[in-house]
């Protein structure tokens, strides 16, 4: 089953990537959006970051590898994947 990993703390990135499999996706929210400045290229997973959290923090120079989405798309993503895992 394709899984959407939701990450809210940048400190947990490497442990989260350990658990991600090939067809999965990673969505950055809250403090984790600061990761979206870089290309983390990993297992060809899809990469998303929550636009509202980027705007809140004044971050406007994200790497092109990250698709920026709003809350409406966040809801759609949770349905496009079979389940979500919030990596705490």
């Amino acid at each position: 089953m394709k899984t959407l990993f939701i990450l809210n703390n940048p400190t947990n990135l490497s442990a989260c990537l350990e658990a991600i499999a090939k067809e999965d996706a990673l969505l950055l929210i809250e403090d984790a959006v600061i990761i979206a400045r870089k290309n983390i290229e990993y297992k060809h997973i899809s990469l998303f970051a929550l636009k509202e959290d980027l705007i809140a923090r004044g971050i406007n120079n994200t790497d092109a590898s990250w698709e920026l989405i709003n809350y409406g798309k966040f809801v759609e993503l949770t349905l496009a994947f079979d389940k979500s895992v919030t990596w705490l």
Partner: protein
Amino acid sequence: MATFSLLITANPYSNQGQYSALEFTKAVLEAGHIIKRIFFYADGVLVANRLNCPPADELNLTKSWAKLAIEKDIELTVCVTAALKRGIVNQAEAERNALTSESIDPAFELSGLGQLTEAMLASDRLVTFG
């Protein structure tokens, strides 16, 4: 149309998770989906304290959840074990534990952890905010 349940463990005073969960819930409803239950657990239960008084220029999360629940008829369920430990009690629990008063906001309901499992089984998606 899909059915969602939320598990919220984020501390409302020190983490952004409750703000995120509130925005997510609104987006779910705007898209025409159904919220089966919002289950508050761990430090997430602290948002149900009706004595919370944030500064006037900050969002009152307790009232925000309560308003949404009343307007959209959403179940806000608070884990009773996690709540009791954190001083969030209804009238019955206050009496049982010889406490001076209740403290839960009336829009939230105390119940057991089984309500989380039941929500998982009855929903298409469970999304956690911690």
